[in-house]
Structures are given as C-alpha cells and as structure tokens.
C-alpha cells in the first residue's frame, strides 16, 4: 500500500553552503529495511525536482536505522543569497516526509 513517510519515519534538515541535507530515520528495523529499499536517489530527485536541485547523494546507516540524504545546489546559492522564505532549508525534511512509498501493511510504528 502507499504510505506517506510522515506515518513511519522522522527527519531533520539543515544547510551547508548551497547544500541542503536531511537525516531520515526509521523508528524500527523493519521500517528501516523498507526505507532503504524505497527511498532511492531517483525517487528523491523526482520528489525535489520543483526546487531545481543538483545531484542527490544518499548513504544508508544501518547502525542508526537512518538514511543520510544530501541535495546539492538546492539553496539558490546558499542561505545568505537565497530569496526563499525557507532560506536555511529547515523545511526540506518536512517536504521529504510528504513522499509516498510502497510499504507493507502493518509496519510496527505506522501512524
């Protein structure tokens, strides 16, 4: 079934120069396996296409059940040059939590 990431995961984002970066965290190992499978660089590039981003980087971290995501060239040149309300990219994580993925029914922490 289709599940919004906000129902199964938590996330925080920040900025470094022109990069936005996101930590996406599963509450449990079963959900982590689903995130690892479904949240791919390709899916991320599509999801954030509206921001006009550059290359997407992605690292899975099994030890903390997390995906580290970096969106290059995502902040209009950086927080001090950006025209956006969210110049610091603090809400990029909220945008990510809106992504819908294919997930099995009955994940342990499904909201």
């Amino acid at each position, binding site marked *: 079934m289709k599940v919004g990431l*906000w*129902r199964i995961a*938590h*996330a*925080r*984002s*920040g*900025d*470094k*120069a*022109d*990069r936005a*970066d996101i*930590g996406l*965290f599963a*509450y449990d190992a079963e959900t982590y396996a689903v995130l690892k499978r479904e949240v791919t660089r390709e899916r991320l590039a599509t*999801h*954030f*296409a*509206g*921001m006009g981003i550059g290359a997407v*980087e992605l*690292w899975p*971290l*099994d*030890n*903390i*059940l*997390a995906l*580290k995501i*970096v969106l*290059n060239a995502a902040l*209009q*040149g*950086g*927080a*001090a*040059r950006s*025209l*956006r*309300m*969210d110049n610091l990219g*603090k*809400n990029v*994580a*909220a*945008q990510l*939590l*809106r992504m819908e993925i294919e997930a099995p029914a009955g994940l342990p922490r499904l*909201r």
Partner: protein
Amino acid sequence: MKTVRIGAGLGFYGDSWQPVKASIERGGVQYIASDHLSELTLAILQKDRQKDPSAGYARDGVPMLAELWPLAAKHGVKLILNAGGLNPQGAREAIAKVFRAKGWRARIATVTGDSVLERIDELRTAGEPMAHMDSGADIAGVRERMLFANAYLGAQPIAEALAKGADIVLTGRVADAALTLGPLAHEFGWRWDDWDRLAAGLTLGHLLECSGQGSGGNFGSAGEWARIPDYAHLGYPIAEVSTDGRAVLSKAPGTGGRVSFDTVRQQLLYEVHDPHAYFSPDVVLDMGTLKFDDEGGDRVRVCGASGAPRPPTLKVVAGYHDGWMGTGMIGFAWPEAYAKCAKSAEVIQTLVRERGWKVEDSNIEYIGYDSLLGANADPAYRDQLNECFLRMTIRTQDKAVAEAFGRLFPWLGLSGPPYVGTMKAIQPAKELLGIWPTLVARERVESKVSIELERAG
C-alpha cells in the same frame, strides 16, 4: 575512572543561555561549550566591525557571562565560547570591563589567527589556489567583494589555553565541535594522533553544538514533537565522558526536553555530508561504527567512534557581496485569498517590467500555502484558504531597486483586490552574500594562531 562533564551553551548567535543555568546548578558540568557562530554570523559581525573597529564579536557573550559567571565560579565551571567572532580581543575587553565593574576575577584566554581575509593575496602567491571547494571556480571572480574569510581552527589551541589556566576561552572561528573536543583532550591528555578518541570527542561536540536540538528541540516529526515534555524549560544536552571516549548523554534533572535514541540520532546527522567521512580540523569521523544505547530516563550511551587521520588542509569559509534583496508582502482574507495574492503578484511583475528595473532573479511565495513546502505543498488546499499572504522577493545589483521594490506594495491596499491584510510591505533592502568554501594548507594558518591569557578584574 575519571569522567568529565561538558554542557552545551548556545547553539547560535541569539540563542538563550537560561537553560545553561540548570546545567551548571544541577547538571554537574565542569565545562560549557558555547557556539555563537553559524556559517553566516561572521557576515553580521563584519558589518558591525565596519561601523566600529572595537566591535565584530558576538555581543551576546557579554551579557551571557555577566549572568552566568557568578554561578560558574561557584561551581568551578569553565566556559569556552567562539563569541570572539572577528575580534576575540574586543570581546575580551568588553567582558573584562564588566568583570572589573563587578569586582570579579577570571583568567580569560583569546585564540586568534583564524581570519585570512587580509592574507588572501599572500596565500595565493604562496601557492594556495583557494578555488571554490564544490565548483572549482577561481576566487579571482569574487576577490574584490570578499567581506570575511576565516579558517576553521581545531581543538588544540583551546586545549592549550586551558592548560595555561584559562577560566574562560574566547575564540574566533573554530570547528563547532572543537569547543567540546578541546576540554576533553586537555582533561584526558589525549594525543593528537589518537584518532578514535578524537573521533569520540568530535562526535560528542557535534551532539552538543546545537544546544536544544540535541535534547528534543526541533524534533522533526509528525506527532512525536507534541510528546516532547516541557519545551518552556527544555534542558540543553550534557555529555559525561570517560577517558576512553565512551560517554553518556543526558540533561540536567528537572528540565524539559528529551534525550533519547531518536532525538540524539537526529542531531548526529544534522548538517553532515558524507557520514563516513565527517571532516574536522582534528580528525575525520566515520559515523557508521557508532553505537547508541538508550537507557531510558533521558540517558543515552554513545561509543564506537572511529577516526581517521586529520586532513592536511583546513576549511576556510569566506563570504562575498552578491547583490541586494528587495522584499514585498501583502495579505488577503477569504474569499479567493490565494487568487488575490496571485493577481497581486501579476500586477507587481507588470510594474517592475514597465519600470525597466534590472532584476537577476525573483521568487513568488504564498505564506499559508507554499512558502515553506515549495512544490511539495498540497494544491488541494489552495483555493479554500481562509487567508493567504503574498511574499515576493527580487535579487538585484542595484540597492535603490531593492529599496523601491517593497514600496510598490502598499498602493495595492486601495487600488488592488479586496479584503487586504496587514501592510508590513516596506522592508529595507537586504545585502546578499555568496558563500565561498575553500581549503588552505593547515600550517599556513596554524603558524599564525596565537593564544593570549590575561587576568580580568
């Protein structure tokens, strides 16, 4: 076994130091590591310094120490602050003045030598290209517009200042985590090539450097954020560290917030690029081997950091002038709140075009609809909004255009669509800065680093 307790101070210029009191009074900390400098803060401090050469430091360090020092002195707590900004000696003088007036005594150390703005040409002549770290672009294109350029120093000068007997250490730009790693290396006598221990210290510094974000603040989630207890009295994180680098993260008893596996790992990955190679001036950390054990009761054990040798270069972040931002806003109530914002945007665009203003870039956002979620806002709500604000911004090289842009908006109140909201339209032009991250051979910077210790009061 010996342990050292370090508490988080501020996480940015303007953050609150009230939670630091609980860490000192009830958290048993020996050190406070206070981070006043985000990537952009030096730009603000540079403007201060242009107006007044004795300024250029983070001003909040002065009232913070004025309020905390009596407590800190009573409990034997030392404070490490990067509030020196572009002028650590200026910060020291401002603080010493307060201490003299109050009759307090303290040994205050300053760490200087991180600024390379005046040395850019010298460094380039010496063979440092200072090209943009990400794009590889030549610095020559922005050289004349540089406003600040500072290297991130490591923990060694901080440890040295403490070894000299400092009660308060004031630095300029240092790696945020060095504010914590410095006292740990000093207390435990860690060798500067003991990579795993340095990596452990770096991990803990990173977990403390954003104050409340390490203990339940800004917990990015749907629903879970509402279960974080007592935001009003949120305690800042505290690390209790053993000589082998193992640590327990906690916060002062009786404070709000939460220290758990979830809150701690959110901070771990915050503003990190490659988690297997997290660079600092002192060590390169691999986060992939870290282990967290949530003991409950706001206690999380951290161990397993692995470190690789420090890089031969230091990161320098410079900022350069890159035009001006003009901003205008206007709000409307139902009915058709969004449509009226969109119509207003169209009108403003026509006016800008007719005036022939040179605009490099522009942004249209609808506050209440998409100003934070961008293209991921759900359009299902767009036409049913109770109210909506239009926010338009432009980037231009012409400051007068940036100033004039906001002044286009109030006119809409009587001559545009109906049911207009507040008219906070006129905002001053804001200077925009480009950020220039680059690398410089570390010895060229470190040879100029100086540590001075003076007695205040």
